[in-house]
């Protein structure tokens, strides 16, 4: 019985839903099309609730860390920031009717703290990449020499200064992207699609059960 509910019921639902969605794309039948439309709406609503579930899970996870006194300061900061924002947003929405998206304080916090902070972290990567390029980009053999040349052409060619250094540099960079680059990306994409197709068939046949969670 337990195996029935743990394995076969979720698998049955998956097979039924997948078949119906596939049928919806190729069959024009009002009842079927409406049913899939309702299912899509339901999925979007579930998606919205998933944000709430992640807030609860994040709180649980960091409350555990605080109890164990493991990275407590960081966890307190994260939970404090998150819950102050949630409570303040809900308070303004309930008592003043202002939606969080149009709330000036939340906008200000985003523009003054979140956006520059996140952008700074991302920009720091640039410095790390510069240091890594200096150390790791070595023409030790023919393959690394090709990588090195392509890297330099691309770095310089995509910046406006590339044309000042050599008129043909942007064209060279664009050729790399358009010809070998596009060929490689298309091959990768094709491989990705075929492997995803194979995986989906395995899931539908019940050979792949990782998505059901632990124990199966």
């Amino acid at each position, binding site marked *: 019985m337990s195996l029935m509910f743990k394995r076969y019921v979720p698998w049955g639902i998956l097979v039924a839903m997948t078949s119906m969605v596939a049928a919806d794309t190729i069959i024009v039948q009002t009842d079927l099309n409406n049913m899939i439309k309702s299912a899509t709406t339901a999925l979007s609503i579930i998606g919205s609730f998933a944000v709430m579930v992640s807030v609860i899970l994040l709180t649980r996870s960091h409350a555990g860390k605080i109890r164990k006194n493991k990275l407590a300061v960081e966890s307190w900061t994260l939970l404090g920031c998150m819950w102050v924002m949630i409570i303040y947003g809900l308070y303004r929405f309930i008592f003043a009717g202002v939606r969080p998206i149009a709330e000036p304080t939340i906008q200000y916090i985003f523009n003054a703290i979140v956006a520059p902070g996140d952008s700074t972290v991302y920009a720091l990567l640039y410095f790390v990449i510069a240091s890594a390029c*200096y150390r790791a980009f070595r023409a030790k053999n023919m393959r690394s020499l090709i990588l090195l040349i392509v890297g330099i052409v691309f770095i310089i060619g995509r910046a406006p*200064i590339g044309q000042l250094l050599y008129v043909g540099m942007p064209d060279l960079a664009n050729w790399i*992207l358009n010809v070998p680059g596009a060929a490689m990306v298309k091959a990768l994409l094709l491989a990705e699609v075929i492997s995803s197709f194979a995986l989906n068939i395995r899931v539908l046949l019940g050979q792949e059960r990782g998505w059901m969670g632990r124990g199966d």
Partner: protein
Amino acid sequence: MATETAGTRKSVWDRLQDIDPKIIYGIMLIAVFLPLIRPLGVPIGNINPEVTNLYNYLNSLPAGSIIVHDCEISPIYMAECYPCFVAFLNEHVQRSFKVIMFTQDTTALPAIEKGITEVYGKTKDHPNYGKTFVNLGFLPGSTLGLNAFAADNLFPVLDAYGNKLADMQFFKEMADKSARSWRLVVGYGSGGVGYLVQQITDVYPNCKTSSGTAAVAIPSHYAYYPNKIIGFLGGLTGAAQFEYLIGKPGIAIAGMDAQSLASLAIAVLIVVGNVAYFAARRTKAVRGG
């Protein structure tokens, strides 16, 4: 040239190879800050073909065409994608296009607000809000949500401010309230826009795909360019070239000097690192011989 003595001291080339990262960070800092203090005025140069294609395609569309923006502009991509978004909106205002904006990333909501305020002046209080532009806010459901929205534009029911979509002039004027009425869908971020091609352009071929992508995702666009992705703005450079084409210089053009100098600094560092590597090898070979 070598300064070593009896194997105890490292040669100049060895020391150059093991240079302290702080020195490299310092060089990069100067490369980024110098143009901010003293602009170099590096010309934009030739416009990339993907930007020209996009510009020409937009030019071929009649006024009132519907352009849809899936604004995945989370704070981490603000520096690269936000200038693209603003450049797009400026062009749409110039050409009197109708614009729908939404995001599937909750952290991108303020970026949409900021962009609308910067270009239109006001958001929901603008007299043309609900007529020429609409902000749908967060659209949940990932690709399924996008698919449902493309099939029925009234699927989200309310906009970001709680207004009913069915009551808006924007949607009332649409004869076909599906992606068949759209002419371009624009994505952002670093994940590529393959999902827009698959969910929108493949199903509704009249609607082409474009993007204001982070530079790291540029190669992924070439699988679909130029048939399904009609053109795109690749990072800050793409945004700057588009700003130049539409004749409205903005933050992207202002950032080009810094990007040029920083790119040049990285290339020079790579060359110096390699020169040091080969010189050190040669010195050791001579000593060994």
